[in-house]
Each structure stands twice: as C-alpha cells, then as structure tokens.
C-alpha cells in the first residue's frame, strides 16, 4: 500500500514539475465590446452581428482583404455584365461544389428566394430594401439551375459588387413547399406596408413562419452554407462558432483564400470594459483585440513585457459622427445646426481621444479617396464667434437664461439640448464633455446622456434624442448613402431625420451612376450639400488598431471592417516553455 501511495505521489510530483505540453486547441478568441444583439440576417443591428453572419452564411461575392476588392465566393467567377438602356444585366454562375448542410446544392432558386425574403412584406427587411432596392428582377436560366441574371436599375459598377453582397438563405429550410416561388419579385417590391399590401395567403403564411423561427435569438434555425455553425451563444458573454467538419469549399481544388477557413472554432468574447479586455489580452484569455483604445495601444506597443503580442494599424473607413435630430423644432433649421458644428474642437479631440491616430474629413468621404473628396470645403475648426453669428441668423437671441427665439405663432423655443451616446467608450465621453464645455461658454445648456447600447439604439429609432454620437462604417467599394440619409430610411438607419426630395434624388443618382467622373462630381456636390444642411458632423476617421497574440498569423489586418479576417487566422503551435 505504501508503495502504491508513493508511486501516486511521484506521479503527481512529476506531472507538476513537467513542462506543460502544447494543446491542440485552435480556438481563436476575439474580443467584442458588445453583443451582436440580433442575428437575423435581415436585421444585423451592429458590425458584430454582420461579422458573425458572414461566417455562418455565404454571399455570392466577398471582399478579399489583402487585395481590397470583391472576389467570387458562392459565384464561380465575377459576374458577366451587360448594359441594356438604363439597366445592367448581371449574370452569375454558382459553384458546382456549393451545397447546404443537408447535401442539397445551392441553386439559383435559393438566390431568388433570398431576394424575395429581402422584399417580403411583414418582415424586418427595411435595411435590405433600402440597400438592395436597385435589384429589379431575377431571371433564372431554364437550362442551368446554377445560372441566373440579376436586372439592376442604374449603371454604376459599384452596383455589380453590391448585387452579390448579401447572405444567401436556404429555401429548403424556410420555404420547403416552395410557396414563394409563384410570387414574382417585382410584386413583392411594389408591395409596401404603406399601400395596403396585396398580400397573398402564401406570403402571409411565409412571413408568419419566418417570425416564428425567432432568428434574432436563434440563428441555428437557419443553417447557412458558410464555414461555421453556431455552437453556443450566451448573450452579453460569448458567441462560439464551430468549423463545419465538411464545408463545401473543402472540396474545391487549389482553393482561393476566401474558400479557406482555418480556425476549428472562433469564440467571440464579449468584454465591454476596455481595461478588462486589455488584461484578458495580456493574460492570453483572448488572442485578438480589435480597436484597442489609442492610449493603451501606444503603451502596449512600447511595453517590453508585451513581447508575445503583435500590433497592426490601418487607415479605416470607420468614422465618428455627431448627428442632429432635424425633427426637433430647435434643430430644424440648417443655420442652428451649422452653428453647433463650430463648437466641436476636432483637432483637439483627435489628439486627446485618439492620440493622433485618426484623421479629419470634411464629410462622409474618406480624404484618401482624392478623386471624390471635396477638398474645396474647409475642415471644421472651433469658432464660437461664428457659432454665435449663425445662431443670430437663425433667429436666436441671447438673454440671461441662454438662447431663445419665437418662430411664427408657435411657442417660444429655448436652445437646450441633450447629447446621447453609447456608454462605455471614453472617446465618446470626451467628445460630449468638450462640446458641453464649448456650448456652456456660449450659454447653451447641454445635458450628456450616456445610454446602454440597446437602449441607445431604441432611442435613436424612436427619434427621442437631440444630438447623438454614432460610429459609421464605410468601404472603398460603393457610395450608397441611402441607409443613413435617405428619407425612406427614417426610423431604422436615418436617425437624423434628414431628407429632402433633392437630397434623395442625389443619393439615388450617386448610387446608380456608371460614369466615374460624373459620379465624382455628384459626390462632391453631395458633400457640399451635407456641409450646408449639416444633419451630421464627421468628427474624424479612425485608424484601426489591432493587437493579437504572436502565435496568431495571417490576420489580414485591413482598414475594412472588422479590420481582420477571422476565418483566415492560423494558429502557430506554441513552443514548449524552456526551463
């Protein structure tokens, strides 16, 4: 017995003293600052939801982060494009290897089904309708089930890329009886909630079925043809994606980078607090920390103890904007909004909140896009005199209590504002405090209103804010401002309430213009219009700052959201600890 105990003791001692063997766990852990909230592919309320959906589903085209261009994904090649009057005919051929999880092939019929879902009345598809409203029809090839042609309104090349940039949904899962097949896409597109829809029983039944699937919280009810499946989602804690054992792209010989998914699992760890996330990165609890706060990033980069980390930066298309709710009576006129724009100290904020790792812009266009950037407009600088002068022009008079005015026979107005922002980001707090201080010096009371993320979104949608801070994400491929500034996007994406007939027309013209020089002229005009109307102020474009464990390679760090390519990441085995 003594020997037995001695042997067990020795075993334990040896186990304790031995070098830990490297584990084969290839789970990539990535920090998210907030929950995706909703994983319905039609809704996608934030970039995290968008990132997750791109791993669960495939679209026809995707972005090659290294080349910064669209490449075929479900499509076998880039589509063939033909012009026909004011229309573009875009013909796609689907890959023969592409299949759903049940082995059925991904067919043109699935693409048609997806477009119908994106336009089906009774579904939360307002965003999709606005973004892909240029797809007029789909023509299926009677001889080839994998071939189809999309009819696009407009002639801009960006439309071709956008025509393939949405997740393709499985018809067999949502509409196994094919009830939507007889309903034409054009009929669904004409049918809006406002015009007493001519809904067929099939459409109504489908909408009910879709709602009953509760895809917002149960995306597993809609298995996509992407490389990953949802294994677990604990809201506000983590989201775990598991690599499919057999993904259709594994059968492709010599696969292109977009057809490769390396990590066996990707765990998105939801850590709202930056300090906690930094600690988790240092401890190795997370491997990728995107958008590290500028101060931490600089300190971490200089820290010799952080030798096990690698750092990446890239100029991004993300911008922080301050929006004005133009539906509020005090913010209805452009002069008041222009006046308030002069209270932001943008150069100071770039230095203070981003440590200089950001750059200003006159409008929503990235300054690096020199061909379309309107450099004739001056950058905004703080100028309280100009602000006071503009307020006077807008009819405001300063008295002991602040600023007031009388508009017609309506009630007297006082210039008092609330400034809402998502809580938890020090940069937002710095911006609001700077604005509040500048406004207070001018006699304008401003009440900061930090709100939890979902409550903030709810208030934005309900139009209950005066001013708000928002992060907008752009890309170098398309210039479609409809989701954020078109009057048809009021209530779900256009939170400023801005939108006139002229601005709507210009937004639509920009999105559909084929000629690059004409489009550039229109874009410059649009930037001037935005400066005149000032529904929002672009404070600065961000630089992406990514920190990752040094054993993670092939991140494809880029300025396009989310700033890395999760599926491409490779894990280098950790070498055993040296004694």
């Amino acid at each position: 017995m003594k020997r037995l105990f001695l042997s067990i003791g020795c075993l334990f001692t040896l186990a304790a003293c031995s070098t830990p063997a490297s584990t084969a766990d290839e789970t990539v852990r990535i920090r998210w600052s907030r929950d995706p909230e909703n994983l319905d592919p039609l809704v996608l309320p934030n970039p995290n939801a968008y990132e997750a959906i791109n791993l669960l589903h495939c679209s026809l085209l995707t972005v090659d982060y290294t080349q910064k261009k669209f490449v075929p994904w479900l499509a076998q090649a880039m589509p063939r494009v033909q012009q026909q009057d004011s229309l573009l005919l875009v013909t796609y051929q689907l890959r023969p290897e592409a299949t759903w999880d049940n082995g059925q092939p991904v067919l043109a019929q699935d693409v048609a089904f997806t477009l119908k879902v994106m336009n089906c009345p009774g579904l939360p598809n307002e965003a999709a309708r606005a973004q892909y409203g240029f797809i007029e029809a789909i023509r299926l090839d009677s001889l080839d089930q994998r071939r189809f042609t999309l009819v696009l309104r407009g002639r801009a090349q960006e439309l071709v890329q956008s025509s393939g940039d949405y997740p393709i949904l499985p018809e067999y899962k949502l509409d196994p009886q094919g009830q939507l097949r007889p309903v034409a896409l054009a009929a669904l597109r004409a049918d809006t909630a406002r015009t007493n829809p001519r809904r067929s029983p099939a459409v109504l039944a489908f909408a009910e079925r879709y709602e009953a699937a509760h895809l917002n919280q149960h995306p597993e009810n809609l298995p996509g043809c992407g490389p990953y499946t949802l294994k677990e989602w604990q809201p506000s804690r983590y989201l775990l994606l598991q690599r499919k054992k057999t993904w259709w792209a594994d059968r492709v010989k010599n696969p292109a980078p977009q057809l490769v998914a390396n990590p066996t699992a990707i765990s998105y760890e939801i850590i709202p607090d930056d300090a906690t996330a930094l600690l988790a990165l240092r401890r190795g609890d997370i491997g990728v920390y995107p958008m590290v706060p500028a101060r931490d990033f600089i300190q971490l980069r200089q820290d010799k103890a952080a030798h096990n980390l690698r750092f990446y930066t890239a100029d991004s298309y993300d911008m922080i904007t301050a929006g004005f709710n133009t539906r509020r009576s005090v913010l209805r006129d452009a002069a008041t909004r222009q006046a308030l724009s002069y209270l932001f100290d943008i150069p100071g904020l770039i230095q203070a909140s981003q440590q200089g790792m950001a750059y200003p812009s006159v409008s929503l266009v990235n300054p690096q896009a020199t061909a379309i950037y309107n450099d004739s407009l001056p950058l905004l600088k703080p100028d309280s005199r100009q602000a006071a002068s503009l307020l006077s022009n807008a009819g405001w008079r300063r008295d002991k209590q602040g600023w007031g005015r009388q508009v017609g026979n309506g009630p007297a107005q006082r210039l008092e504002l609330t400034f809402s922002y998502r809580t938890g980001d020090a940069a937002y707090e710095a911006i609001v405090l700077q604005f509040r201080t500048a406004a207070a010096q001018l006699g304008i009371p401003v009440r900061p209103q930090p709100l939890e993320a979902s409550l903030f979104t709810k208030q934005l949608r309900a139009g209950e804010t005066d001013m708000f801070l928002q992060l907008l994400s752009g890309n170098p491929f398309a210039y479609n401002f409809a989701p954020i500034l078109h009057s048809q996007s009021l209530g779900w994406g256009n939170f400023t309430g801005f939108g006139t007939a002229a601005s709507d027309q210009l937004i639509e013209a920009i999105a559909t213009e084929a000629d690059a020089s004409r489009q550039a002229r229109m874009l410059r005009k649009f930037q001037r219009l935005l400066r005149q109307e000032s529904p929002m102020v672009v404070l600065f474009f961000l630089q992406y700052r990514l920190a990752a464990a040094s054993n993670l390679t092939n991140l494809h760090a880029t300025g396009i959201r989310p700033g890395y390519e999760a599926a491409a990441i490779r894990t280098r085995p950790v070498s055993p600890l040296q004694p």
Partner: protein
Amino acid sequence: MKSRARFSTLRRWLALLWLAGLLVAAGLAPVLPLPYAPDAPDLHAIAVTPLTGQHWLGTDPLGRDVLAQLLFGARTAVLVSLPAAALATLLGTILGSAAGFWSNDNIRIPAVYGLAALGVVAFSFVFQLSSGTSILLLGIIAAGLSLGAARLHRAGYRQVVALPVDRAVLGLGALVASVPLLILALTLAALLQPSPAGLLAVLVATYWPGPARLVRAEVLRIRALPYIEAGRSLGLPDGRLLYRHILPNCWHTISATFPISVATLIGLETTLSFLGVGLPPETASWGRLLASARLAPTAWWLILSPALAILLTTLALRQLSNTVSRNPQ
C-alpha cells in the same frame, strides 16, 4: 496615560479639522479661483502627472482637472450624503419610535376607518396598473371590502382594531435589509434617471432600517423606565410622552451613530458613482474620479487622491462618532 489622552485629543482635533476643511471646500468650491471647471476637459493635457502646468494634481484620461474634481467631489459627497443621512435618520427615528412606543396593540382605530383606508390604498395602487390586470384586482378588492363590511355589520360598526405598527415597521425593515445594501441601491439607481435627487431618494430608501431598529430598541428601553410610568399615571398624552420625554433621551444614540451613517452613505455614493450609476456623468464625484483610473491604470494620482479623500473622511467621521459617544455633552 497622559500621552494616550494627548494622542486621543490630537486625533479628535485632526478629525474635526479635516471635516471642517471638507465642509469649507464643499461650500466654497464654486467660488474658488480654480483654473479649470471639474467637467471641462483640457484636450492638451490628457492624463498628465501632478504639478504639470496649472494642473496641480494632474488630470484624468479625459483631460479633467483632478483638483477641481476632488473639490467638487467633496461638494457632491456633502450635498448627497449629509441630507441622505439626515433624512434616513429622521425617517428611521419616526418609524422606529412609533414601533417601539406603540408596539402592536397600543394604537386602536375604529375598524370602519381601517377598512376605508385599506380600500383607498388598494384602489390607488390598482389604478397605476394596466387595464387588463386592474379589472381583476378591482374585483378582488371590492369582494374583500364587501366581506369586511359584512363582518363589521355583524360585529357593530364601533368595533376597534389594533394597528400592528411594530410588526409593520420591523417587517418592512427586514424586507429592505434582506437584500444587500449595494445590490438594492444599484437596482433602484438603475431604474431612476441619474440625478442627485434620485440618488438621494435611493440612499434614503435603502438606509433607513438601521436607524429605525436602533431607535426602536432605545424607545423600548426608555418606555419601561419609572418616569414614563409616572407620566402615564399623570395622564400625559402619548404624543407628548414620546416627543418631550422619550425622544430627547434617544438623542445621544442618534447623534453618536449619525457620523457613521454619513460615512457609510459616502461609501455607498462613491461605490455607485464608481460603477457609473446614480449621478449624471457631468457631476464630479470621488467614485467617478477613482473609476477613471481604469482608463489609465498607470496613472497613480487618479487612485491616490480620491482614495485618500475617502479614507480620511471615513476615519474622521468614525473619530467624531467615538467622540460624541464618549462625551454626550
């Protein structure tokens, strides 16, 4: 022995000096010639160390002056914690003395009044609810009141019932105290819009059971003393007995625990502010200043200054409490 007494006196004076300084700082903060307001960021001095330019105690990661935040934080601590402690003590004293003095069977009211009061309270509560639930509840209340009225009719309308004041106060206190103070305060603060008035209400609503229990015990003790019995035999009314002859004798206990209450409530206010609830973001608070250290973990001055302020204030208040309990006069 002499040196110990001298040290005790020194401690007492130091505590009084600190508290007096705190009160002066709180009172004069808005008129002091500070170079920066507590909520105005200096974008050119982000998280700078003490003695940099005009920032004598440095700045936080948003560029706010630490000295200004400390002084205005003292003002917030005084303006929130002092009234909160006073109100919680007042509420606790009223409820605790009523519970201790009248116990469960010394207040008797005609049953018909009790029934009417119950009806008014129940109906007013139900009218706050949504219509679907309220119809059902209204029915239940009406049925209960009818049953009560029928019973009264049989027993005669002059029947009196005893009000269980003691049981009600103890029960309510136990209910509030059963939830940890911080959890309860956090829950209430999350429900209310951040404002000093809202925070005051939260602190009072969560802190009153302590003083109530203390005063109740004291009243129970004094009520049994011979001079109260003498007062009763002379025919003095209850209110006078309680107000003129019992409560003055509880004053010593209340005044000795008051500084402890203030210290506890400063701690609670600071914790809530540290967690980002209770006060609006533009209001300076020691807790908020302490929380800003999370954004710049290497900025030691963001921890040192507010931590020292909280520590010294708490120690001074405890010293004051000791002094009062030892020297009632």
